[in-house]
């Protein structure tokens, strides 16, 4: 197992947001966590990235290394776990190229960077056209492409995606998920959280359902798509 999360608990001040969730991901998988607003989806990703402290008793391991011993920047630069955050969080005062290069700041394999940037431009040709434009001037779809491209540049073992479909037109959504599949084919494990459950389950192989900080269901995407409770609560009947 590449990523093992056991009994993960996270609190904001005194209020528990995650009540001990457990899941495992194998290398090369595409896994999704679906759930309503405020169920704990983003909290889960932010805990894995070490942006939020985990409560005592939580266990997080990446390839048998204790994730809890790593600082947020080292999770990216040493373990290769990249994170496309909610709202994309691009550096609007940097150009497209600079955003991509900043993500390689701590990389040791300098000789591969040029080739990786070219690969990002093959997946998202639009970014190549916008190379020297400030990222703040990009359209929503282009910004999402850059957020994914930037994560790809920073680390490629696992990519954590927080609502990649948010704010995208249906057609753009589909091509974004096609691009993510291509990134996955080159060996990157993908863990995404989505409110758009149908889209996420069609894209992922397996899924978990999170409710009020608990994982309440898990299964293959097909099973979840056919599960009557999931249908009722997340797929609009």
């Amino acid at each position, binding site marked *: 197992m590449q990523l093992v999360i056991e009994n993960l608990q996270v609190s904001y001040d005194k209020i528990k947001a995650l009540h001990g969730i457990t899941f495992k991901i194998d290398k090369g998988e595409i896994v999704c966590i679906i759930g309503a607003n405020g169920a704990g989806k983003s909290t889960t990703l*932010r805990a894995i*990235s070490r*942006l939020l402290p985990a409560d005592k008793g939580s266990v997080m391991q990446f390839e048998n290394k204790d994730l809890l011993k790593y*600082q*947020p*920047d*080292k999770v*990216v*630069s040493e373990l290769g776990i*990249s*994170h496309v*955050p909610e*709202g994309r*969080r691009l*550096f*609007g*005062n*940097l150009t497209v190229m*600079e955003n991509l*290069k*900043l*993500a*390689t*700041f*701590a*990389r040791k394999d300098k000789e591969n960077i040029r080739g990786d940037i070219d690969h990002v431009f093959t997946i998202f040709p639009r970014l190549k056209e916008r190379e020297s434009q400030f990222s703040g001037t990009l359209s929503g779809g282009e910004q999402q492409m850059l957020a994914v491209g*930037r*994560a790809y540049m*920073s*680390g490629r073992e696992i990519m954590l995606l927080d609502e990649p479909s948010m704010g995208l037109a249906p057609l753009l959504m589909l091509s974004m998920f096609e691009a993510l599949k291509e990134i996955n084919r080159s060996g990157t494990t993908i863990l995404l959280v989505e409110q758009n459950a149908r889209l996420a389950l069609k894209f992922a192989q397996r899924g978990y359902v999170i409710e009020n900080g608990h994982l309440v269901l898990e299964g293959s995407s097909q099973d979840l798509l056919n599960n009557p409770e999931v249908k009722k609560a997340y797929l609009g009947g």
Partner: protein
Amino acid sequence: MDLFLQNIVNALQWGSFYALIALGYSMVYSILMLFNFAHGDIFMVGAYIGFGIATALLGFAAMIGLPLPGWLILILTILFSMFFTSFVGMLIERIGYRPLREAPRASAAITGLMIGIILETGNLALLGARRLSFPALIESATYQFGGIFVTNKKILIVLVSLSLMYVLHLFIQKSKWGMAMRAMSFDFQAVPLMGVSINKIAPLTFAIGSALAAAAGILYGLAYPVLDPYMGVLLGWKAFVAAILGGRGSILGAALAGFLLGFIEIFVAWIFPSTLRDIIAYSIILLILTFRPHGFFGQAHSTQLRL
């Protein structure tokens, strides 16, 4: 007319000090959103370190009987003092500000004021209350252009200041460290997601700001060769005003406003009795800030979100 041009020359020199010091305030603010209120005292520390290095170099040259030229000693003094003072800045970041990163901004401001007092009184305890006189490293020469008089020191001070600002500009725009600083000024919470450690960028920013303040300290010592432990207080506060006037966190704004402050002070003193200089000069600035509370290049409100 000659007097007018003469005052421009004087204002350029005077503004250089403000601009160099204001840059340090603005750089730190732009990445950490806090003002380092000990920064004026870092200017003082830089001047003293420069004094120590210049004295040591002069003594060393006399000892081995080698007459090192004054300009060489000056260059070495500036470089070494910038180098050592940058460590003072990094130390202040490490022990003073890093533990307070999540704390309310007021805590950081109070800490800065206390660090400033420690630096002033520490100097007083260490070296005593007597004033030191900065060695005259280069011989003064005065050149006459038409009706205006320009000393070689004035030219040197303005040129060194402008060169340092240009190097800073190149560093921020072209290097990957500068790129990380720009990114951090936009959204510092997203920076770790790029694999960039805030604990590397923050000390670097303090180091650069402190090095610029040290350069200002030595240039100041060259023009006004009397050092005392409180020399950085008023100058530091005025440079802070320049940083606000330029727009919080704006590097270009800080440099321009530093020079503008120099011009306002010099020209007010030219027109009015010099005892009224600060009252009138800072009333003008207050008036500007009334109409432009965010300064020249500041953002109207913070765009930073919490991650």
